């Protein structure tokens, strides 16, 4: 089956877009102009201005001399490059493969898409009507090759449909400039009197290659279908994708939920058959007014449980604004991983960290509150208390070293040690009393010191002498003295509470 391509050419993309934003200009001649070497040069003119002989490339001052009532505005090149891209993204509704054809065209690969609209003519009409409704003037043609479709859209008749394998016949009478070639080569062709493609096709290939180079031959082959032209879709193809279009625009949450559930069931079945699971998925809603609303989910472990995935989406469904209604739903599994088949359990076990229920719960928490709020810690080979544990990357990660419990450690550790006033008798003895938050604590029992050196290969500073102390009420604290007693610039801190 031959491939089919549609080329769309926006005759006046910039002015059409400008008119959409400023409907008041409808009956006036206006142009967009940009600075070029100290002059204002027209970059786009609307149809009324063109009918007065004003076209792009003219200097603005000249144009205003011709037509004093001409209105002019600043061109915004960055905005227009994004505009074409967003129109391309909108065209995803007609085919999954859309490519940009700078500066004012689109290429759709519509192989196997047209029958959804009845036939190819109806397909082209549907696209053209939608663009006309929006206010864009377009021309579009369909052919087996990108080159042929492009040539016809620029030099042929509007809405031409070239039947499969007939592109040669359709191109015969067109000028060589329809082949998308360098102006330099074009000029040479004209000098030689080759003014139609039919003249070129009749010539021997070796002569053409010698005179015009391989690039020219390639363009000719692209147009005639002797060589496949690669298409660069604006959205890379997603193999795990499900789409659901609705007869009437969907407005209600229930409707969206049903659509999501259907799509998820279909996708999960496919994933299950491939032995894969979702890690990242997005649910896209195309609205009647042309806006696109999208929600994403991620999972911590590949999953093809549609019930679980639905719960993850459910948390975000409220953020979808249906506006005037949603006409197309699309579910993409953008990141898919192999899944480890879970053996059915004979008896119910209360699971540990690899329990499915726990995983699904963590997924829900992650999607609601972000991944940063979930922490799991493993031991680290450091004595320095703040560094004695480290965050672990995943739930499955096994701990390498073991937890130490040979030394007393407080159950609550202060985020940063707080300075306290202390009365301590002689070096290396625990303090007799200390003042913390304006409360005086008399120390009855104490253990220590436990000296922890600062790791010089990480940071510099004083060592700490830790004491576990118990005050007269039986409350147990973790205190330390930073620095040597003899240095005179030591300081006492409180660092934690024992249970």
């Amino acid at each position: 089956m031959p491939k089919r391509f549609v080329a769309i050419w926006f005759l006046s993309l910039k002015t059409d877009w400008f008119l959409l934003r400023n409907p008041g200009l409808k009956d006036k001649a206006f142009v967009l102009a940009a600075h070029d070497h100290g002059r204002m040069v027209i970059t786009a003119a609307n149809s009324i201005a063109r009918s007065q002989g004003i076209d792009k490339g003219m200097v603005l001052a000249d144009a205003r001399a011709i037509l004093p009532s001409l209105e002019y505005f600043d061109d915004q090149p960055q905005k227009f490059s994004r505009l074409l891209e967003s129109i391309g993204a909108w065209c995803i509704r007609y085919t999954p493969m859309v490519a940009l054809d700078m500066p004012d065209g689109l290429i759709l690969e519509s192989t196997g898409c047209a029958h959804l609209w009845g036939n190819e003519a109806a397909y082209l009409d549907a696209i053209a009507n939608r663009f006309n409704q929006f206010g864009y003037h377009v021309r579009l043609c369909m052919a087996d090759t990108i080159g042929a479709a492009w040539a016809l859209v620029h030099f042929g008749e509007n809405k031409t449909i070239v039947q499969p394998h007939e592109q040669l016949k359709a191109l015969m009478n067109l000028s060589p400039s329809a082949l998308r070639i360098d102006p330099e080569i074009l000029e040479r062709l004209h000098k030689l009197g080759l003014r139609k493609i039919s003249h070129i096709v009749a010539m021997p290939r070796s002569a053409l290659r010698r005179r015009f180079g391989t690039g020219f031959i390639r363009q000719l082959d692209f147009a005639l279908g002797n060589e496949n032209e690669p298409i660069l879709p604006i959205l890379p193809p997603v193999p795990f994708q499900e789409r659901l279009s609705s007869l009437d625009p969907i407005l209600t949450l229930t409707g969206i939920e049903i659509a999501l559930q259907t799509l998820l069931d279909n996708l999960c079945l496919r994933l299950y058959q491939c032995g894969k699971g979702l890690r990242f998925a997005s649910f896209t809603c195309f609205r009647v007014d042309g806006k696109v609303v999208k929600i994403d989910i991620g999972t911590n472990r590949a999953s093809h449980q549609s019930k679980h995935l639905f719960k993850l989406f459910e948390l975000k469904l409220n953020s979808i604004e249906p506006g005037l209604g949603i006409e197309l739903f699309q579910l993409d599994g953008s990141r898919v991983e192999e899944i480890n088949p879970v053996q059915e359990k004979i008896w119910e076990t209360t699971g540990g960290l690899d329990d499915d229920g726990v995983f699904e719960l963590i997924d829900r928490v992650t999607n609601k509150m972000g991944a940063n709020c979930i922490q799991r810690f493993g031991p680290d080979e450091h004595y320095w208390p703040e560094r004695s544990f480290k965050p672990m990357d995943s739930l499955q990660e096994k701990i390498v070293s073991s937890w130490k419990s040979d030394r007393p450690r407080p159950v609550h550790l202060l985020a940063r040690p707080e300075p306290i006033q202390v009365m301590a008798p002689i070096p290396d003895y625990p303090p007799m009393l200390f003042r913390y938050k304006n409360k005086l604590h008399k120390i009855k029992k104490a253990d220590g010191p436990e000296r922890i050196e600062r790791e010089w290969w990480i940071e510099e500073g004083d060592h700490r002498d830790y004491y576990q102390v118990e005050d007269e009420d039986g409350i147990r604290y973790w205190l330390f003295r930073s620095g040597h007693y003899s240095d005179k610039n030591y300081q006492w801190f409180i660092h934690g509470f024992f249970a």
Partner: protein
Amino acid sequence: MGYVNTERADILARLQKEILPLQGYKPMPGGNRTNIDLGAANAAFPNACFPLGAVHEFQSQSPEQTAASAGFVAAMISHLAKNGEAIFWISRVRRIFPPALKSFGIEPDRVIFINAGNDNDLLWVMEEGLKCKGLAAVVGEIAEISFTASRRLQLAVEQSRVTGFLIRQHHRLIKPIASVCRWRISHLPSEFEDGMPGVGFPRWNVALEKVRNGKPGEWQMEWSEGRFNLMDMPVPAIERELNIKVG
């Protein structure tokens, strides 16, 4: 006459046992494989069995008391998570020092800490956690919780039989909530048996201020060698900070 009395007592005991399931005390499926053993203090609970699958509330008034409650809760959970089950510890800001949990019998890498941005998120995670059968326990540190929210937690627990612990630190008197037990843990001076110097095992005054269908009480407990030991010493002369009964 005595025969009649014992018969009546039997009937009463049987009727009481019938009431318990109706109030949300369901025996764990498969018998009491794992339970928290508080020694003689077990007598305070209905059926002399620590109520699992319920929400326990711990009140504290100072950071020190909160640390004591956290230690006591960790020690309780170590009985529940013997087979390596996961534990949720939810708070606004994590204060727990993970390596310390090891000394209370918990593998610290089994604990999943969740830092919630606000109280609503915290309660949502707590409720979802309590619904998840794979967890051994869910601990939430929250100051203010409404009665309705606490009812929701209790209802979540009745389905899944996960045990929930709420640690509430507040400097003022706090409103009563729907919990099966209300505890207040405070420090007691530790002691070595033969008067050795130094700080001994953690020792607490454990006040069970409220227990549904049970007898509230007060005990002195020490956590050593992986179990709770009851002290049969008199209540020490230190002045306990709160004697106000709530609810």
